[in-house]
C-alpha cells in the first residue's frame, strides 16, 4: 500500500469530521426512548414504503432511459453535443423547486403536455405517486448519465469493432463486450441517482404535492414534521439514514470501479 502523505490525512480527517458532525448532532438529539412509538406510526410507515417505491421506480426508469442517453452523448457526432449535454445535466444545477414548477408547466393540468395527456388519456400526473416518480427521475437522471457517459468514453472501441468485423450482431456486441466493461459505472451511477431520488424534496412537493400514502415521501414527511412535531422529524431522518446506508454500504466495494 502507498503511504498517504500526512497533509492529505490531515485534510481528509477535517473534511470527514465536518461531514460527520451533523450526523452526530442528529443522533445526539434523537428521542431514543419514544422511538418505537414514533417509528410504528402510520405516517412513518407510509412515508417509508412510498419512498422505497418511488426511489426504486425512478432508478428503474433512469436505468432504462439513462443508458441510451449516455451512449448517445458519448458516441454520437451530433453537431450540438455540448448544448445537448448541458440540457441533460441541467436538473443537477436547477434548484429542485424550479424543476418542480417547470414540470408543472409541462405536465401539469395546464401544462402544454399535461393538457394533452388529460384530454386524450384522462391522465393527470400531479398529486399522484406517478408524479412523484416523474419528479424523482427528472432530478436523478443526470447523476446516472454522467457516470455512464464517462464509462462509455473510457472504454476502447477497438474491441467492439473487432467483434463487428467477426460478424457479431449489435445486441450481442453490447451485451457481451460493452456492457461488462461499463457495468461498474452503471452500478455506481445507479446508486448515486437512487440516493438522489430518495432524498428528493423540492421538485416533488412542487409538482406532486403532499398527500400521506400517495405523494408524501420521507423527505416531505420530515419537512412537515420539522415544523409541527420535531421529534417525529428526527425519527423519520433516522429511517432515511438507515435505509440509505443499508443500500449503499454493500455496493461500495463490490461494484465501484476497483483500483
Amino acid at each position, binding site marked *: 500500500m502507498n503511504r498517504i502523505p500526512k497533509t492529505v490525512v490531515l485534510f481528509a480527517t477535517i473534511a470527514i469530521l465536518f461531514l460527520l458532525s451533523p450526523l452526530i448532532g442528529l443522533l445526539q438529539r434523537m428521542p431514543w426512548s419514544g422511538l418505537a412509538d414514533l417509528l410504528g406510526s402510520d405516517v412513518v410507515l407510509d412515508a417509508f414504503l412510498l419512498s422505497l417505491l418511488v426511489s426504486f421506480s425512478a432508478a428503474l426508469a433512469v436505468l432504462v432511459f439513462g443508458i441510451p442517453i449516455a451512449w448517445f452523448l458519448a458516441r454520437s457526432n451530433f453537431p450540438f453535443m455540448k448544448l445537448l449535454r448541458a440540457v441533460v445535466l441541467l436538473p443537477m444545477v436547477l434548484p429542485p423547486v424550479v424543476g418542480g414548477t417547470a414540470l408543472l408547466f409541462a405536465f401539469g*393540468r395546464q401544462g402544454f403536455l399535461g393538457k394533452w395527456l388529460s384530454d386524450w388519456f384522462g391522465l393527470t400526473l400531479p398529486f399522484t405517486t406517478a408524479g412523484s416518480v416523474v419528479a424523482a427521475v427528472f432530478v436523478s437522471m443526470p447523476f446516472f448519465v454522467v457516470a455512464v457517459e464517462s464509462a462509455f468514453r473510457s472504454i476502447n472501441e477497438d474491441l467492439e469493432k473487432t467483434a463487428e468485423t467477426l460478424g457479431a450482431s449489435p445486441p450481442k456486441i453490447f451485451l457481451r463486450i460493452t456492457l461488462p466493461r461499463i457495468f461498474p459505472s452503471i452500478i455506481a451511477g445507479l446508486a448515486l441517482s437512487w440516493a438522489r431520488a430518495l432524498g428528493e424534496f423540492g421538485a416533488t412537493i412542487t409538482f406532486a*404535492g*403532499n*398527500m400521506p400514502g400517495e405523494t*408524501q415521501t420521507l423527505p416531505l414527511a420530515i419537512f*412537515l414534521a420539522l415544523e409541527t412535531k420535531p421529534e417525529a422529524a428526527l425519527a423519520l431522518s433516522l429511517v432515511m439514514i438507515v435505509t440509505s446506508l443499508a443500500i449503499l454500504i454493500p455496493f461500495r466495494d463490490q461494484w465501484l470501479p476497483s483500483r
Partner: protein
Amino acid sequence: MWLLRVHKRLNKQLLIVGIFCLTCFGCGKEEQEVNIYAASSLTEAVSAVVERYEEIYKVEAKIVFAGSNHLAAQLRDGADTDVFITADVDLVDGLGFESILEGFAYNSLVVVKPVAFIDKSFGPSDLTSDEKLIAICSEGVPCGDATKSKFGIINADTYEMNVKAVLTRVASMEVDLGIVYETDLKNEPNVTAAWPQEITCPCVSYAAASSGKKGTDFNDFLTSDIAKEIFSSHGFSL
C-alpha cells in the same frame, strides 16, 4: 523604490480606515433596523404597515415572511428577531419574548376556485367527493388547524405547508378548489369564492410577540389607527 513603500503604507492605512468605516456602517444600521418575522398570510398587509412605519418613524425594517410554524422553528433554533407575528399564539411559548399582543387582527377561511373556472359551479359537497382536485393546508399549521375545525374532514389531494402554497395551486389552476384565508381573495386576482359563503367565524387570531424597545415600538404601531386602516383594507377583521 521609496514611492512604492509610501504607496504600500498608504494602502495599508486606507485599508484600515476602510474596514473601520465598513464596521461602523454595519453596526449603525443594525442597531436601528427592526427585524420582523411574520406569518405568510400577512404578507401584503404587514408589508404595507411596515412601509408606513418606516416613513413615519424614519427607521429601516427587515421582514421575513413564512408559515408561522416555520418561523417558530427558526426562532427555536437560534434565529433572532424583534417582532414575531404569528397566526397561532401557542407558537410563541418558550421563545422568550418579553410581551405579546394578542388578537390585533382576525382572519377567516373561504373556499376558492380559479377565476378561469367561473362557469364551473361547485358546492360544499365537492369538498368530500373524490371528483375534484382540492388543496388545503396541512394539519399542524395554523391554516390547516383552522380548516379542520371549520370544515371537518375534506377529501383533499394535497396538503400544503402554508396558505400561500394553497393559493398558488388554485391560482395556477392545478386544483379545482382550495381553502384559503378570506384576505387572500383580495390579494390574488386569479381566485374567486367557489360559491357564496357566509363568513361564520373569526377562525384565526393573530398575535405579535416582541422583545426590546424596537419590538415594542413596532407592536404599539400595530394597534394604531394607521395600521388598523391598512389591516381592514386588506380584509382582516379587527
